[in-house]
């Protein structure tokens, strides 16, 4: 069956693990299918939320608690809400006709390509000898961050340490990226009428002044 040369040697899976995984997997897949096949954008957004929750559960199962929390807060709590805002803004009652495909060959080719991709990936998983890098390139997941006693430990501490040392530059860059994104969004979403009105007002003022100057 599936065999990897790097298998977690510590524990064998127990029944609760399998059950949790199965349930989460089901939730995820159903949600994904829902996103892809809903006619209504709002239904799609809600399916997305379902998928995100499933993924969060899987994160917890893989000892990535902090990330699960961040996922829920950021993705499900902010991004999807943003989506819903825009859907409402653009009109809720737009339904899309999923049956018709105006672009010829798009659907068949899409299915074929992605079937190939999926089959390929699973085949690779099944048969390939994975050559991966060394363990612990950056740092362990658990464990104290410094050797001294009383140092904070755990995943959050480790993540924080790496973020502020190894990945500091990327961290700052993403901060800048966020600022740019906000500025860009504000600029993009400005009402066009406002700027035009301002220009027109300015032009009228100038015309008045020059008219006065000529007349006098």
């Amino acid at each position, binding site marked *: 069956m599936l065999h990897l040369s790097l298998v977690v040697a510590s524990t064998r899976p127990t029944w609760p693990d399998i059950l949790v995984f199965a349930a989460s997997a089901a939730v995820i897949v159903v949600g994904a299918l829902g996103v892809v096949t809903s006619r209504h954008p709002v239904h799609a957004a809600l399916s997305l939320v379902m998928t995100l929750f499933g993924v969060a559960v899987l994160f917890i199962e893989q000892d990535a608690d902090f990330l699960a929390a961040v996922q829920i807060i950021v993705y499900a709590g902010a991004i999807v809400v943003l989506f819903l805002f825009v859907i409402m803004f653009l009109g809720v009652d737009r339904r899309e006709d999923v049956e018709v495909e105006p672009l010829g060959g798009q659907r068949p*080719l899409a299915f074929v*390509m*992605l079937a*190939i*991709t999926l089959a*390929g*990936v699973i*085949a690779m998983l099944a*048969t390939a000898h994975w050559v991966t890098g060394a363990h612990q390139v950056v740092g362990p997941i658990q464990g104290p961050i410094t050797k001294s006693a009383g140092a904070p430990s755990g995943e959050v501490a480790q993540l924080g340490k790496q973020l502020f040392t190894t990945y500091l530059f990327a961290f700052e860059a993403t901060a800048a990226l966020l600022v740019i994104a906000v500025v860009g969004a504000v600029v993009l979403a400005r009402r066009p009428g406002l700027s035009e009105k301002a220009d027109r007002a300015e032009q009228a003022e100038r015309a008045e002044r020059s008219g006065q100057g000529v007349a006098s």
Partner: protein
Amino acid sequence: MPLFPLAGFLVLVAAGRRIGDPVAGWIGTLAVAAAFVVACLTLGGLLNQPDAHRLFVHDYFTWFHVGGLNVPVGILVDPLSVTMVMFITGVSMVIHLYSIAYMKGDPDYPKFFIYMNLFVFSMLVLVLANNLLLTFVGWEGVGVCSYWLVSFWFHRDSAASAGKKAFIYNRIGDAGFLLAIFLIFEKTGTVQYTGGPGGGIFGQLHHLGGGTGTAAVLLLFLAATGKSAQIPLFNWLPDAMEGPTPVSALIHAATMVTAGVYLLCRMNHLLALTHAGMEVIAIIGGVTAFVAATIACAQQDIKKVLAFSTISQIGYMILAVGSGAYVAAIFLMVSHAFFKGLLFLGAGSAIHGLDNEQDLKRMGALRKTMQWTTITFTVGWLAIAGIPPLAGFWSKGDVLDNVYSHYKVLWFLGLITAVLTAYYMTRLQVLAFGGEPRWDKIGPHGEPPLHAPHESPWVMRLPLVILAVAAFFGGLLDLPWIHHDSFEGWLGPVFAGSLYNDHLHAGGEWALALTDLAAALIGVIVGFALWRGAQVDKPQLEPQFLQRVWYWDDFYDALIGRPSQKLATFCAWVVDVRIIDGAVNGMASVVRATGSATRKLQSGYVRNYALGIAVGMAALIVFLLSRTWWS
């Protein structure tokens, strides 16, 4: 020595137009005369040397040096080249003098002497060169000057195309020359005759045995047929009579046409290697002589008769070369230069006197008004017919003697040709100078009668006299019973090893001499008998077949001319338009079609582009999969 005519050429190019006639003519003549003087001095110098030491090679500078090929510019002075130079400069000098008066009044007077001087320069380079490439330079030079001079009156269509014809036929021969040079260079590594690595070409003859030698010889002979107007490249010479008569005299009687014979004589050591080659040469020479003589019997134009006569005489020379009788060939060349030059100049005098009328049927009784011309022309006539004691008898006899021992059939052919020679020359003499005047009557095509002919000025008569004397006494150069001190002794060492000289016992020699004399007399008597009367229209004696040069021109036209034209038309309309333009335009169309097809990829739909990404992703996955499976 070649520098004198070169200097003359340059002076005339620079200032000719301003000097005008006749001073330009005198300058040209003086240049050649100076060369002649130097030639005489060289002759004297060589005569002082004993027999075996008469070879002098000197390199002036290196023309170019490429890889293993070193080509100097230098001269080779030996009896052969000095002989050539002597008669070339001598006859040229005389003809230049003649042209001063002949070309008088022509608007392009200086240009004429420019070309003539350049021609003499090229001919001297050809003869004096010490390597094959420099000879080729001279060869090409004379070809070019021949082209210019034949089409000197180029506003006449016939003259322009005659010039072209001459040059093209020459060119074919030149291709043969070049190929021969390549072959020889490949085998011997040098193009110098003597000197240079390995002792020059003549020092490395062992490399040129067998097939290569024969091939080289035949290629050189092809060049000689082109330049010296033998079968199969002889058609240009009759057409070249379109040029002014001094040109015909100089180039097509005395010098350029002898270049081919000279080349073969110079390469005699090479010829000696291949018996098959020599046979070919001899056969072609003999056949050409015969064919040309038959044609000459039926020509109407005085210059054309002389042209075919030239072809025939050179055929004799080539026949001699093919039989190994090089000395005889050179002897005939020298005496031919004298009497043919004389005949042409005489003809020119007659033409000049009759206001450029060249048709024999309209001349007649010129002896009454142009005495000098008549007398000198008679000397030439007797010389070429082979009447002793003039030069022609001895030289032609020499050739026939040597041929007799080799190829009896060709000797017989040569004998018949001698009869024909005497016959047509007599016909010419009688029609032009004898009989009753016909120029004062309406011509056969309705032309008006001509003025009475006048004798030529002294400038033209003097050369005629000089050449007549030379033709008369030229035979003394090589009387058959004087061997060592004569021509034969002089030239013999040059051809050492390859010369064939037949010393028949005295009885055999006398018998052959009498046969020659008999042949000449038969020809003369028959000629007189047939043409003496006033009736000059004798179509049965001048069949169309002979008049049309055995239909040789038409044969070439049908064989080469028309198909070439068809090919050219085909190329122009089919290849050029459809294939080449089609290819180029087709490429453009293909590009456009490809562009249109590829354009569909840019549909503007984001989802299509995303599909493209998906395709790439699938391909990547498959590629990685295959890598893992294969490794």
